């Protein structure tokens, strides 16, 4: 493997600005690696070679004439396939959008390009971001570089697989119920879901509009902070993006937080948790204690997880999420009508309703249909109050719990996932079981607060384990610094998967 691929995004950027290498050389190293490895990992839906080469050349030319090409100059970044780009296709890994070419570029993508990043391509995902394994992709599932028989998580699984497998330097994902943090945990990388409204959603294909956020997926915490510096901030094109100053997330990153107050949500550390993950989290807590952090138990009663007689897990937050998110999805996905863009049936349609119904039946996969149907049901006459309105009230209770916890804590610490990466096809038969993969991440989206997943170790089967650090509204700075404290003190950072199936080079 080319040594350039081993550098973090910031190290690569520094190597380029020192003149040790060029954006073009770095890009070619990644393109070569993709050509060798992506047949096995299937992280990408589309690699955008020409546009990437043009951008890398632009960066190198700028450097030659002494212009500063930006904070992410020359860094090859992969983009989840639900972020619109005017070049290449934006398919959401769906047959519905198989040939869709977006007429505009997402603000987050425009910002990283403005900062000099080289967009490598569009990564695989669960169709329309609905899933936790990428098995719902119309292109087929991506693979976890740590074990090729296991899923990378989802829905941003292609991005996670690409970062962990050195097929990009960093990536963008989106997170509606855990879709950045869960795959980050399963692939042993860093993933941040920012505060709702921190990053513009303009050009992100909508799933659950009150929950969706774009965020970085990176090899270490510093790279995550660097990408946040570029993508965070107000955008007039997104009415829900908030006009608040953006701090420099890199500036104090290495300064430990004195007297850091950590809350352990007791509901998330129950006996139901996988014992290896429990141990890893306890070890992480010890690391923080040794750094002088004050650790105490807190309660998020409305996010509690109960285990039933058969060992099945249940959670109010998961129940609340599957009403709110699917209701929003049923409305957002009404736009796919076979008329304006996207798949259109080739069968004869008797009338316009027939055209809609057939186009949608052919274009959407099973999970997307299931969620649209569920969302339509909970919003339908006679059920609206009992389901949708009830869920919105429970959402308030869940958020109130977080508000209360942050009165006495700076961050909350808990697992990211109930288990390490699961096998392909292990959870596809039962939709509910798949939904429970997000049991620790989902309430964070309902509350709108920021949270990061960072690796805290490996299981006995050599699979990554993730830890989630949750912050108060707009406290990405605290979350990132606390994450960096652990990374530095533990030395657990930039985990590298074994060279599975890698050609000897």
């Amino acid at each position: 493997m080319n040594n350039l691929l081993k550098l973090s995004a910031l190290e690569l950027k520094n190597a380029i600005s020192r003149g040790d290498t060029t954006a073009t050389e770095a890009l070619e190293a990644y393109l070569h690696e993709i050509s060798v490895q992506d047949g096995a990992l299937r992280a990408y839906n589309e690699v955008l070679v020409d546009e990437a080469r043009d951008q890398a050349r632009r960066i190198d030319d700028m450097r030659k004439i002494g212009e500063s090409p930006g904070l992410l100059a020359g860094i090859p970044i992969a983009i989840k396939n639900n972020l619109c780009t005017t070049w290449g296709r934006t398919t959401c890994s769906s047959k519905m959008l198989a040939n869709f070419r977006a007429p505009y570029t997402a603000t987050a993508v425009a910002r990283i390009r403005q900062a000099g990043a080289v967009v490598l391509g569009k990564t695989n995902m669960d169709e329309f971001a609905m899933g936790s394994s990428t098995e719902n992709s119309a292109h087929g599932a991506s693979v976890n570089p740590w074990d090729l028989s296991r899923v990378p998580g989802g829905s941003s699984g292609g991005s996670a697989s690409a970062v962990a497998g050195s097929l990009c330097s960093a990536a963008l994902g989106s997170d509606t119920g855990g879709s950045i943090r869960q795959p980050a945990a399963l692939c042993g990388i860093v993933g941040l879901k920012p505060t709702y409204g921190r990053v513009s959603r303009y050009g992100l294909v909508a799933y659950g509009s009150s929950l969706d956020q774009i965020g970085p997926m990176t090899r270490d915490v510093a790279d995550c902070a660097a990408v946040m510096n570029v993508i965070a901030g107000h955008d007039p094109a997104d009415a829900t993006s908030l006009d608040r100053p953006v701090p420099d997330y890199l500036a104090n990153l290495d300064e430990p937080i004195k007297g850091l107050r950590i809350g352990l949500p007791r509901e998330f550390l129950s006996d139901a948790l996988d014992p290896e993950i429990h141990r890893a989290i306890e070890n992480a807590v010890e690391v923080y204690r040794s750094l002088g952090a004050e650790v105490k138990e807190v309660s998020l009663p409305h996010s509690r997880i109960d285990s039933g007689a058969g060992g099945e897990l249940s959670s109010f937050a998961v129940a609340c999420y599957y009403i709110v998110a699917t209701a929003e999805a049923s409305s957002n996905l009404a736009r796919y009508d076979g008329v304006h863009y996207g798949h259109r049936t080739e069968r004869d349609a008797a009338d316009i309703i027939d055209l809609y119904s057939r186009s949608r039946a052919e274009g959407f996969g099973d999970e997307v249909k299931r969620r649209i149907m569920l969302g339509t049901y909970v919003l339908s006459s006679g059920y609206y109050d009992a389901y949708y309105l009830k869920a919105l009230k429970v959402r308030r209770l869940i958020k109130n719990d977080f508000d209360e916890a942050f009165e006495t804590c700076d961050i909350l610490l808990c697992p990211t996932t109930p288990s390490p990466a699961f096998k392909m096809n292990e959870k596809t038969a039962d939709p509910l079981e798949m939904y429970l993969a997000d049991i620790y991440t989902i309430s964070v989206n309902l509350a709108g607060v920021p949270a990061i997943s960072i690796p805290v170790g490996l299981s006995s089967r050599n699979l990554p384990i993730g830890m989630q650090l949750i912050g108060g509204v707009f406290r990405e700075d605290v979350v990132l610094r606390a994450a960096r404290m652990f990374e530095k003190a533990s030395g657990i950072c930039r985990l590298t998967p074994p060279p599975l199936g890698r050609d000897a080079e």
Partner: protein
Amino acid sequence: MSNKITPEVVRHIGKLARIELDDQQVEMLGRQLGDILRYVDKLQALNTDGVAPMAHAVEIHNVLADDAPGQSLTADEALANAPARDNDFFMVPKVLGDS
């Protein structure tokens, strides 16, 4: 809530959602939606009297833009992905009868 997801209910929801369903899908979706709804029914156990519904994570209201003309897509750009077009129009099957 008692929720019996009969084939008729599934077909009705499919109609509202504009998704054509065959008999096998109606059977499968009835079962799966029933399971999911039984699961989400646990919310009924929570007392939410007097709790204000929360539709958005961050409370912002009435974000207004300046009433100034800006750049928008040209007709060609807007129609570029259309499955069928006729000049500057999207094409659909006949909606009104001949008579």
